[in-house]
């Protein structure tokens, strides 16, 4: 196979991986702080994708412009969800949280089915089918924009957690729950903020993904699973880890598709997950848990 | 008396901090031996190494003539060392009786026999009337007693007690002292305890080891220890004497 094919495929894998990484980042932020595994993560992204599709079809608003508004809407959704539903479950056993979020996922997916019908929806921007050509190498334009937006969004979030007072307070909560209570932090509000931020990440990722993927109401579970794989590979709770994990999984799937039968490519992503769990359980960039 | 447990130059480091530094001592069979020292002196780390919760970096721990350092906690328990936890860890959702039965099942695979043994021990530790209570609903003193009962149920030759008197009222402390002393006398059970309540240490222990900042600063009979100037200065202070 010609060498440029490898380049094309790897570059594509990196770019898609960045967007996947941003989606997974939401899961990572929520787990890292609130210690709840969001099994409705993919469904939350589907909501964001449908909002982007609606905004485009009704108002011709480009998903990249809608990125911030959609993230804001999802922030409110996540915040409200945490306050209204999830908060009492934070100290409950994992299987109870699992049931709660699975129920939520069922409700979201089927509500979307009732509202939007089962058909795949997409956004046809002017640049949706553009690609950049550099000699023999062809790069998907929409993926470049989405990948760049994913990096920007992550950097902004990273800065928020490192530089702002609220961000530092949230990190304090994550490190030491009791300690945070003792020094008088409003942990419940910080948790809600965190869940909101996680939802905002997945919202932004959804807005970008509609550029390259069609959305259906039943899209959720496969993305939830993908987010798990990425986040555990990169390190649950680590923000750069999510992006690195996303890129690693993106490139792995791309290369596996090229070298083996593509229908089995996600097997390789799971193989990486298993290896990471066994030999570096804290993830590639995660901190070792005591 | 032969040595049941002996430690030789045992050390443990956590992230550059030396928690236990070349500690060595011998506990004779049938003795009651106390380890005292201020908070952070390395007592619990020392216990955790003997019980197998953490492995020592250096040194040897020999129990009943065989080295046990580096063995897993459950293997060490099966060799005959049982422990309690400083912050009690009963099986919270299970009844008091089931908690102790689980310990007894180690040596008595038959559930009925294990339950009988558990009931005997609950009698001994004044918990029989509370045997149907769920462990998480017990008061702290009861939880401490439950830990002792569960540890005893594994029929140890050596019992490690990590501050079982802390938080007990004086009358309860006295009662515990009586129970432990009786156990020691009747079955020859060797006891190694970490304790802050000096009154209990004085009443129970034949020998006392004092740790400070991970190192041994004294070892001897309780009487000599309380008059040791180094001990008085670093730990006991005026009010304890």
């Amino acid at each position: 196979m010609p060498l440029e094919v490898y380049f094309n495929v790897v570059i594509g894998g990196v770019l898609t991986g960045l967007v996947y990484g941003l989606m997974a980042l939401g899961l990572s932020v929520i787990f890292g702080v609130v210690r709840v595994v969001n099994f409705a993560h993919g469904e939350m992204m589907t909501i964001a994708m449908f909002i982007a599709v609606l905004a485009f079809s009704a108002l011709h608003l480009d998903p990249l412009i809608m990125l911030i508004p959609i993230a804001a809407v999802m922030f409110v959704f996540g915040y409200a969800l945490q306050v209204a539903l999830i908060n009492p479950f934070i100290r409950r056993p994992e299987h109870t949280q699992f049931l709660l979020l699975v129920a939520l996922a069922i409700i979201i997916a089927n509500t979307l089915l009732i509202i939007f019908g089962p058909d795949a929806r997409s956004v046809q921007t002017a640049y949706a089918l553009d690609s950049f050509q550099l000699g023999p190498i062809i790069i998907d334009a929409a993926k470049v924009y989405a990948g760049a937006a994913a990096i920007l969004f992550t950097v902004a979030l990273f800065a928020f957690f490192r530089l702002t007072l609220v961000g530092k307070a949230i990190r304090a909560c994550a490190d030491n729950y009791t300690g945070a209570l003792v020094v008088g932090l409003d942990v419940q509000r910080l948790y809600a903020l965190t869940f909101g931020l996680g939802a905002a990440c997945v919202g932004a990722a959804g807005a970008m993904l509609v550029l390259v993927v069609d959305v259906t109401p039943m899209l959720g579970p496969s993305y939830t699973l993908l987010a798990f794989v990425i986040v555990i590979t990169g390190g649950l709770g680590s923000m750069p880890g999510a992006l690195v994990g996303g890129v690693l999984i993106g490139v792995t799937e791309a290369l596996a598709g090229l070298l083996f039968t593509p229908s089995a490519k996600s097997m390789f992503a799971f193989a990486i997950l298993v290896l990471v769990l066994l030999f570096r359980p804290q993830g590639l960039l995660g901190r070792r848990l005591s | 008396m032969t040595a049941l447990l002996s430690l030789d130059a045992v050390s443990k480091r956590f992230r550059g901090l030396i928690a236990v530094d070349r500690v060595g001592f011998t506990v004779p069979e049938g003795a009651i031996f106390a380890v005292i020292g201020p908070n952070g002196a390395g007592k619990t780390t020392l216990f955790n190494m003997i019980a197998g919760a953490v492995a020592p970096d250096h040194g040897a721990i020999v129990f009943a003539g065989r080295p046990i350092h580096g063995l897993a906690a459950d293997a060490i328990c099966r060799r005959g060392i049982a422990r309690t936890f400083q912050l009690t860890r009963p099986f919270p959702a299970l009844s008091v009786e089931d908690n102790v039965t689980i310990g007894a099942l180690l040596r008595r695979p038959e559930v009925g026999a294990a339950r009988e043994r558990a009931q005997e021990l609950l009698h001994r530790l004044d918990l029989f009337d509370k045997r149907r209570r769920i462990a998480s609903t017990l008061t702290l003193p009861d939880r401490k007693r439950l830990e002792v009962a569960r540890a005893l149920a594994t029929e140890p030759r050596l019992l490690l007690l990590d501050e079982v008197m802390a938080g007990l009222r004086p009358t309860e402390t006295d009662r515990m002292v009586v129970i432990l002393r009786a156990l020691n006398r009747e079955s020859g059970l060797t006891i190694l305890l970490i304790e802050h309540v000096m009154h209990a240490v004085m009443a129970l222990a034949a020998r006392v080891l004092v740790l400070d900042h991970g190192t041994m600063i004294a070892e001897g009979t309780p009487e000599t220890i309380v008059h040791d100037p180094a001990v008085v200065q670093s730990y006991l202070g005026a009010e304890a004497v």
Partner: protein
Amino acid sequence: MTRISMQANRRRMLAGAAATAATLAAPAILRAAGGALRVGVLLPRSGFEAGIGQDCQRGADLAPAILKSLGLPDITLMNADTESNVDTARARAEKLIGDGAQLLVGAFDSGQTTAIAQVAEQKGIPFVINIAAAPAITEQGYKFVFRNFPTAPMILGDAFANQKNIFAAIGAAPKSVVFMHVNDTFGTAMAKGIGAVMPKFNMPYTIAEEIAYDPAARDLSVEVAKAKAADADALLVVSRLNDAMLLTRELVKQRWTPQAILSMGPGWYDDQYLKTLGSLADGPISFVPWYDPHKKLTQVLEAALAKADSNVNLNTNHIFTFEALLVAADAYRRAGSTDPKALAAAIRTTNITDNVSIGPGIAFNAKGQNDKVKDGAIQNRGGKLLTLAPKDAANAKPEWPMRSYLSRG
């Protein structure tokens, strides 16, 4: 679009209400004595097959009125959603029969269809399969199960025959193809069949590379890069809707226009495909079970569909769901009774020539399979679907090779 699907749903709700009213009004004893035939329609209208299931339902919803206008007896639909799940499909089939369904129709998916077939067989209730291509279903020796849809080997055979017709008509043919197929039930059945069927047709092309991809694929850029690198003349595909759209977009982005895209499954002719991709949808040729545009009933069905859903082109899903109900009503007329045994006997002797799909008509062999049903070749041109083959059903000449994607608006 939202508005339209809501309307469709409301209409369905009304239909359901009417059905329930009918159920309540008709005492069980009177069932056999005439009145409407009660047909249970089982389709995956939620879950991962929701799109296709709901599309099939369109064909079912149109049927009662059209059949009545043909002078066939009344049928009442009892709709049930299998939720794309085998367990649920079986329970729904039992429920429908318990609620008085006298005949079952469904269920698009081979697994769900098998589960329903067993219930139907046990109860002796006739079951007319609308769509499901797994050959095994009619190899079980069932007495009450009928399929008016080709099996995977039949689809392949017709596809190769029609391809050769087209190659002969244009005087050109690809020398090599890349065979891309989705790795699901239908895709694998087709991929397996191709090895056995293709040699019999002495095709002008060789398969340069076979690429199987995941039905849930999020991204097909690698697959297309691999296909492009194989440097073949044309693309031979078996896909579904979502992946057909993904594949097309990747072809555009990776700037590869094959001489032809020859599809042997759904996706490339779907309404959603045409609407979403606009001018980029033009060109692919699908070799699929299809309607004969010259048949009278086709025109009736097309008109009815246009009235109900002006945005939707008539397709395989509608046709075969409709025809399943046609078989039911026809059998009911001839049997003159709703007795399941009489109905099944009547279905066995079905001989409908005035139908919608291509071929001489509907009749079932001893296994309950309609082995007369023929596939067509259709090409997307300007948002419409034109029939290229077989000759007697054709209404257009092929456009060959495909116009380059880059030259389209």
